[in-house]
C-alpha cells in the first residue's frame, strides 16, 4: 500500500520534471527533501567539521609535546588573547580538548556518520523511493547544521568556548565563576546540543519508520543488508537515549540560569557560599552516561554495518554468520543500555551496583568478539579485491580488536581504579571508537562515492591515504597507553608540573609527530574527495559487483531513485561466489533458481 502510493507519487513527479525540467537551486541543493542530497549535505558538513576538530587536536598535541614552546601557528589561528606570543593558553587548551571531543563524538561520528549513510543507504538498500518523511529529514539536516554553527561560535565570544571536557560535568559547567569556559561558551554548547538532539531525533524516527514500513516487496527483515540492520538499531538507540541527554541539559540550563539546585549542593566559590543545597552532580553523571554509553554504540554500529557490507563485497564472499551478526547487533544494542555505570566506578557509587555494571559490561565483549571473528572468517579463502574502502574496512577490524581488548581491563571495576581518567582510557576509546568509526566512515565514503557523486575517487591517493592514516593512528594511540600506566591523568595542560612525568616527554613527541603525519594524510583525502567530486572518472552502474539494491538504480540522481517500478527482492544480499552461478555475484533482484535455497543455504 505504502509502496504503491509512493510509486504513484514518484511517477507523477517524474512526469512533471519532464515538462518543467527545473527545480530551483534552493529546493534542489539547499532545502532539499531528497535523501541523496541530504546525505551529501551531511557528509560535506561532517568532513569540514572533522577537519576543524583535527586541527584542534594537532594544536593541543603540539603543546603536550613541547609545553610552553612558542608556535607561530598558534598565534596565527588563536590570536593574542589565547596564544600570547604563540604559547597556547591553559584556558584555550581546555576549550580545544572540549570542543574537539564534542565535535568528533556528536557532529562527525553521530550526525555525520549516521546522517550520511543512513540517509543514503536506507532508501536505496531497502528499495524505497525516499525517506518516510522528506520534510523531517530536511529539518534534521538543518538542525544539525545550526548545531554545528553554534558549537563553533563558542570560539567567537570573549570568554571562549565551553571548556569543561566533552562530558561537561557540573558543577564545573554550571558555575560561571569556576572557569571562563563555563560562561557564554557553555550556554552556546547547550544550545548547540539541544539543536543536535532535535536533529538526531528527527533523523532517527525517520530511519526507524522507513525501515519498518517502506521495504520493497520481498525485502524481509532477514534479507536486509547488515548496513540497514546496523542503522536501524542505531536509530532505536538514539531515539531512546538522546531525550535523556536533553533532560540532563535542560536541568543544567535551569541550574545555570534560574537558580535551581538539581546538580548543586553545599558550594563555596568566588568568596561566597551558594544558596543551593540538596542536589547532586552524580545525578548528572547518571543522566549523561545513560545517553553516553549507548552513544558509543550509536557511533560504532553504523561503522560496523558499513564494514560488514564492504568486506563481503570485496572478499567476494558472503559475510560469515549473517544471522549471528544480526544477533550480535541486537545484543550489543540491548546491553548498551545497562552498562553506563562503568563510567562511574569511582564516583562513590554503591560497590554492589558497580559489580552489576562490571558483569553487564563484560557481557558486551561476547557479541563483539563474535563480530570480530566473523569478519576474520569472511576474509578466509576469499578473493580479496583491495579497493581503498576494503583497506579501511580491514583497518577497522584491527582497531576494533585492539581497542576493544583494553576495554576489558577498564570494565573491570577493580582494575579501573588506578587507570580511570588516565590517558590509558583516552587511548582505549580513541582506538576502539574514534579510529574504528573514522576508518569505517572513510571506508563508506570510498565505497559509496560513485553512488553519491557518480564518479570514482583516485585509488592510488586512496592507498596512500589509508596506509599513512593507519600507521599514524597506531603511532599516536598505541604509545598513549603507557602514559596512562605511568599515572598521567587526561586533560592536563602540561605534564611538566609534576616531576614524576618528566620522563614521558619523548613519548609525547613521538605521538605528536605521528599526529602531524596523520593530519597531512587527511589533506591527501580532502584533495581526492573534492577533486573527484567534479573531475573523477565517471562510474559505471555497479562498479564493485554488488548484490544490494542501490546499484540497480541508474547512475543519475533522480527523484524517486528508480525510474520505473520498484525492484522486487528474491534473495539475501550476500550471494557472492555462489557455487553453480557463473558470475561471482547474484544481485538481490535475481529470482531463486529451481531448488535453490536462500540465505546462505546450499
Amino acid at each position, binding site marked *: 500500500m505504502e509502496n504503491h502510493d509512493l510509486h504513484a507519487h514518484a511517477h507523477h513527479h517524474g512526469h512533471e520534471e519532464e515538462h518543467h525540467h527545473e527545480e530551483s537551486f534552493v529546493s534542489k541543493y539547499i532545502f532539499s527533501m531528497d535523501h541523496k542530497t541530504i546525505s551529501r549535505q551531511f557528509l560535506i558538513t561532517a568532513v569540514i567539521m572533522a577537519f576543524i576538530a583535527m586541527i584542534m587536536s594537532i594544536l593541543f598535541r603540539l603543546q603536550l609535546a613541547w609545553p610552553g614552546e612558542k608556535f607561530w601557528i598558534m598565534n596565527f589561528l588563536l590570536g593574542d588573547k589565547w596564544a600570547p606570543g604563540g604559547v597556547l593558553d591553559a584556558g584555550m587548551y581546555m576549550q580545544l580538548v572540549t570542543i574537539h571531543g564534542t565535535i568528533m563524538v556528536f557532529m562527525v561520528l553521530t550526525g555525520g556518520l549516521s546522517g550520511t549513510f543512513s540517509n543514503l543507504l536506507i532508501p536505496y538498500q531497502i528499495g524505497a523511493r525516499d525517506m518516510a518523511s522528506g520534510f523531517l529529514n530536511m529539518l534534521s539536516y538543518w538542525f544539525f547544521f545550526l548545531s554545528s554553527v553554534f558549537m563553533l561560535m563558542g570560539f567567537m565570544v570573549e570568554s571562549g568556548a565551553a571548556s569543561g571536557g566533552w562530558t561537561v560535568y557540573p558543577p564545573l559547567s554550571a558555575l560561571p565563576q569556576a572557569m571562563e569556559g563555563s560562561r557564554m561558551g557553555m550556554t552556546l554548547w547547550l544550545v548547540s546540543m539541544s539543536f543536535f538532539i532535535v536533529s538526531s531525533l528527527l533523523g532517527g524516527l525517520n530511519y526507524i519508520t522507513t525501515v519498518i514500513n517502506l521495504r520493497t516487496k520481498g525485502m524481509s527483515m532477514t534479507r536486509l543488508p547488515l548496513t540497514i540492520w546496523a542503522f536501524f538499531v542505531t536509530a532505536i538507540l538514539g531515539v531512546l537515549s538522546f531525550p535523556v541527554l536533553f533532560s540532563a541539559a535542560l536541568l543544567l540550563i535551569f541550574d545555570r540560569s534560574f537558580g535551581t539546585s538539581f546538580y548543586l549542593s553545599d558550594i563555596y566559590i568566588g568568596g561566597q557560599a551558594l544558596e543551593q543545597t540538596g542536589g547532586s552532580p*552524580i545525578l548528572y553523571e547518571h543522566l549523561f552516561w545513560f545517553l553516553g554509553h549507548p552513544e558509543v554504540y550509536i557511533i560504532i554500529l553504523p561503522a560496523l554495518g558499513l564494514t560488514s557490507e564492504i568486506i563481503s563485497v570485496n572478499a567476494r564472499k558472503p559475510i560469515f554468520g*549473517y544471522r549471528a551478526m544480526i544477533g550480535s547487533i541486537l545484543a550489543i544494542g540491548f546491553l548498551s543500555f545497562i552498562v553506563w555505570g562503568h563510567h562511574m566506578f569511582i564516583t*562513590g557509587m554503591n560497590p554492589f551496583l558497580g559489580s552489576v555494571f562490571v558483569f553487564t559490561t563484560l557481557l558486551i565483549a561476547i557479541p563483539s568478539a563474535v563480530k570480530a571473528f566473523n569478519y576474520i572468517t569472511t576474509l578466509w579463502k576469499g578473493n580479496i579485491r583491495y579497493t581503498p574502502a576494503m583497506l579501511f574496512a580491514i583497518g577497522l577490524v584491527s582497531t576494533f580488536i585492539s581497542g576493544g581488548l583494553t576495554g*576489558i581491563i577498564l570494565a573491570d571495576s577493580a582494575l579501573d581504579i588506578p587507570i580511570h581518567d588516565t590517558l590509558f582510557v583516552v587511548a582505549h576509546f580513541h582506538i576502539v571508537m574514534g579510529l574504528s568509526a573514522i576508518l569505517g566512515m572513510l571506508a563508506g565514503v570510498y565505497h559509496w562515492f560513485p553512488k553519491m557523486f557518480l564518479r570514482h575517487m583516485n585509488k592510488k591517493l586512496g592507498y596512500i591515504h589509508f596506509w599513512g592514516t593507519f600507521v599514524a593512528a597506531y603511532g599516536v594511540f598505541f604509545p598513549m597507553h*603507557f602514559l596512562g600506566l605511568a599515572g598521567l591523568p587526561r586533560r592536563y595542560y602540561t605534564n611538566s*608540573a609534576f616531576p614524576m612525568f618528566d620522563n614521558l616527554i619523548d613519548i609525547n613527541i613521538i605521538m605528536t609527530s605521528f599526529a602531524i603525519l596523520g593530519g597531512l594524510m587527511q589533506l591527501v583525502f580532502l584533495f581526492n574527495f573534492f577533486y573527484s567530486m567534479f573531475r573523477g572518472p565517471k562510474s559505471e552502474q555497479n562498479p564493485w559487483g554488488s548484490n544490494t539494491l542501490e546499484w540497480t538504480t541508474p547512475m543519475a540522481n533522480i527523484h524517486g531513485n528508480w525510474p520505473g517500478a520498484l525492484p522486487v527482492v528474491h534473495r539475501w544480499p550476500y550471494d557472492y561466489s555462489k557455487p553453480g552461478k557463473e558470475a561471482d555475484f547474484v544481485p538481490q533482484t535475481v529470482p531463486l533458481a529451481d531448488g535453490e535455497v536462500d540465505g546462505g543455504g546450499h
Partner: protein
Amino acid sequence: MIKFLIYVAIILTVFAIGYLVRVFELASGLKGNKPHIITEKDNRLNGRIMLTFLVVFFLFVIWNLKSFVPLTLPKSASEHGDDLDWLFNFNMAILFIVFTLTHILLFYFAYKYYGRDNNRATYFPHSNKLEMIWTVIPAIVLAVIIIFGLRAWNKITAKASDDAIVIQLYAKQFDWTARYAGADNKLGDSNYKLITDENALGMDEKDAKGADDIVVRNEFHIPVGKEIEFKLNAREVIHSAFMPHFRAQMNCVPGMTTMLHFTPTVTTEEMRKDPYVIELMKGINEARAKRGEKPEEFNYMLLCNKICGNSHYNMQMTIIVESEADYNKWLSSQKPFFAKK
C-alpha cells in the same frame, strides 16, 4: 628541543611536498588512465603491505613494551595494590594472546587471499560449530576475568576497619588540604557556610570532636602498615583524589563525602632505594637536566584526576609514608587547628 622540532618540521615538509607533487602528477593523469579499476597488481601490492604491516606493527609493539614499560609506575605501595597489579598482568597476558592471534589471522588472511584474476572465493556463509566455539570460549574466559575482578573489587570496597586512621582530604581549585582526626580519631563537623580565608575547610569550632583536628597543606604523612581511611570532600567542583602509587582513586564531590581506604606497605625511603625507582628517577632527572631544572627525589603524590578548571594540571600534594614512630613524632609536632589561634 627547538632543534628537534625544526628537524621534524623539515622532514614532514619534505614529505608534504613529495606528496603534493605526486598529487599533481596523479591529477594530471587522472582522466587518461583508469585510476579506479582495481587490478591484480593492486591486490598483490596491498596484500604484501598487509603482511609487512603485521611484522612492522609487532616490532613497534615490542619496541613500545621494551622502551615504555620501564617508564610506568613502580611496584605498588599498598596492600590491595599488589593484588591489582597481579590481576592487571594476568588480564593483560590473556588479552595480549588474543591480540596477537587475531592480528596474525587478520593480516595473514588479508595477504594470503589477495584477489587473483582467475580465482574464485569459497562460498562459506556460516558454520554453527565455529560460531558456537567463539561464543563459548570468550564467555568462559570472561567468566574467569569477572570472577577474579569482582573478588578484588569486593575486597577493596569492603568497609575499613574501626581502628583505621581517619584523614580528610579536601579539594578546592587548585590545591589539597589534609585534616587529621586527632587523638579521638573523629573528624569534627564542618559546614561550607563557615568557610573563611582562615578556616578554609569550614570547620565548626563548637564541635568538641574537632578540637584536636590537625590541618596540613603541601604534604601529609601516613604510617606504613596501618590502614588509612580517607574521607573526601570538595569545595566547588568535582575533583578526584588520585594516588597512583597506591593504586587508589576516588572522586571528591561537592555536597557529599566519599571514602577510600588502603594500607601503605612501602615507606618513601624504602621506595627511593628500590632499583626500579632508582632507574626511573635517573631518567626523570636526565630529562630535567636537559630542561635546566634541578634533580628531584622520588615522592608519592596526590593528584587531581577530574577536570576541575584551567589549573587542573597542577593540583598536587606530597605524601610521605614513614615508620609509625616517625609518623607519631611528626604528628605530635603539629598543632591542632583551633589551638593555633
